[in-house]
């Protein structure tokens, strides 16, 4: 009984540590994708001349949602740059990819900057979500405790001769 209690406590501690690691890993993934520079680590996927930038940004968001991406962040970086971050599943644990669309407004050329027309470029960058590696580590940690806890004599097919 004492042994079972000890194993139970170890399991709870390990699970708490793994949950914390998961939260840190998720935050690291989101941090990593937001640091991606569209100039070096993204591909230009669209370039349009438009009148209504907010409507254009909403259109990009809709396209991302249609591509089965769950939008997790949508923010303005500076006066001419917006970023939309989406992941391939609602939950980070089940996501394969985290994508970032960077919308860049190219300032109008010419004597006057006040013009109806804006040239917008969209860049797409992505990273693999670390969720699968994390889940593998969680599974491994949980099972390794079972490996240490179980007496090898109670594993008949593994440690007793079958011949």
């Amino acid at each position, binding site marked *: 009984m004492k042994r079972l209690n000890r194993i139970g406590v170890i399991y709870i501690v390990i699970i708490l540590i793994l949950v914390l690691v998961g939260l840190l890993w998720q935050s690291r993934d989101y941090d990593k994708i937001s640091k991606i520079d569209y100039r070096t680590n993204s591909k230009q996927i669209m370039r349009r001349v438009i009148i209504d930038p907010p409507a254009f940004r909403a259109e990009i968001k809709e396209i991302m949602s249609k591509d089965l991406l769950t939008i997790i962040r949508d923010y303005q970086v500076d006066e001419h740059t917006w970023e939309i971050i989406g992941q391939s599943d609602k939950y980070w644990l089940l996501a*394969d990819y985290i994508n970032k669309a960077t919308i860049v407004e190219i300032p109008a050329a010419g004597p006057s900057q006040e013009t109806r027309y804006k040239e917008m470029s969209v860049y797409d960058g992505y990273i693999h979500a670390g969720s699968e590696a994390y*889940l593998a580590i969680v599974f491994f940690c949980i099972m390794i405790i079972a490996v240490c806890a179980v007496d090898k004599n109670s594993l008949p*097919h593994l440690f007793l001769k079958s011949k």
Partner: protein
Amino acid sequence: MNIKLTQYFWGGPNHAISKGLSLSLIIFAVALMLRISFMLLMLSGIGSSHLVDIFPDTAKYISAGEYLLGSNYQGEPYLFLVGPGYPLFLAIFAMGFGWGYWLILIIQVILSSFSCVIIFRLAELLTRNLYISTISGLLVAVSLTAISLASAILSDALFLFFLAASLYLFVEGMTGDKWKACLWSGIAGGMATLVRSISMLFPALFILFALLLPLSMTAGNRKSMVIKSLVAAGIMIIIPGFWGLRNYATYGTFNVASSGYLAAKSYLMAKILVEGEKRHVSDFQNLRDSIYEVSMENYRAGHYKQDQDDNLAFIVSTIKKYPGVFLKYFLSTSLDNATAVSTLHPLQLPQFNRASAWMTKYFYRGFNNYAVLTVSLLGFFIYIKKSVRIAVILILPIIYFALFSGLTFGQGSRIFFPAIITQSVLVSVGILFFYDLSLIAKSSIKSKWKSLSIRLK
């Protein structure tokens, strides 16, 4: 189940030989059936005339084979690149039967099925556990990568056959104190290296295995085991060494195959340079292709030695300049290859791509799946409880192929595929552990339920 049949397959110690033979036949039959079915489905879908178009490497092997037959002098650079083993295999069949690829596929299917039996026998020798060995053999028999590669005009099925045979004969030679087995092990290993030069450092593993194998499993003493391992390792080095000498005499460079060098130079170094020099990520493809083309042009111009020397200097200087980036990509490429899923079958069975979309969605997360690697690592720690030495012997080939794969690029499951020889054993240990654990849980629940019912009564 019929009792007589059960006794025939699972009888007492007197039936040990027939049991092993029966299981070998079952594993061979399952493997053969799956591989032939796959091959027939593939041929019905893409046609035999397009067999050579599926994978880019096929054309290189055929060119090299034609060069060996003296019919295509443009195949010379490819022979230098891929080595003589597989092109010779193709050329032998071409000499006898013309370039009829269907016969080559049938032979590969048979060899691949034999590999499953060899792995079953190897697992039996190492673990002395029929459950582990049977599951290992069956895992290789149903492995989608193994099935796909058996039906591909690529060197992998032939390489696996030779390497598995080499390892099995080596362990047989050690455990049974048989000199003949060790000699044949060296010959099979040498043939494997001629097919794919990735096994050129395997002789070092043989010597390690001789030091690790428990004396309780072997008929001889440690000294005789080490001597036998040195002989096997020596033969495994000498056989491809002849080809290296041939290249030295012809081109001035001692080399069995230069595909490894070229892959490291064009893929890994290009990746490192793009990140190290902070170039745009789209530059990688251009850089990789230009590095590759420069080497191929050098080969066509006959500058083999110069290119080899340049390869080495380029690799060393790039690693020295960006050691951190090298380590990052080396480890991530190793992990990528070790967790890669089979990506060959969509090309070979395009008619089933829509039907297999569910598999792609639920099992293949991107191009990687960590399940097999996790279970094999778990299997390693489980088997340590029985024998640390055998556990280490089983994991060493996995580490070997994982580390080598880090020097190239993500190639799907193909590059890490040879590790299946011992990885299948560790995975089967993991599977058996889950099964025994479920039995423990079941009996524990049963006894608790019984005591609860008694208390309630």
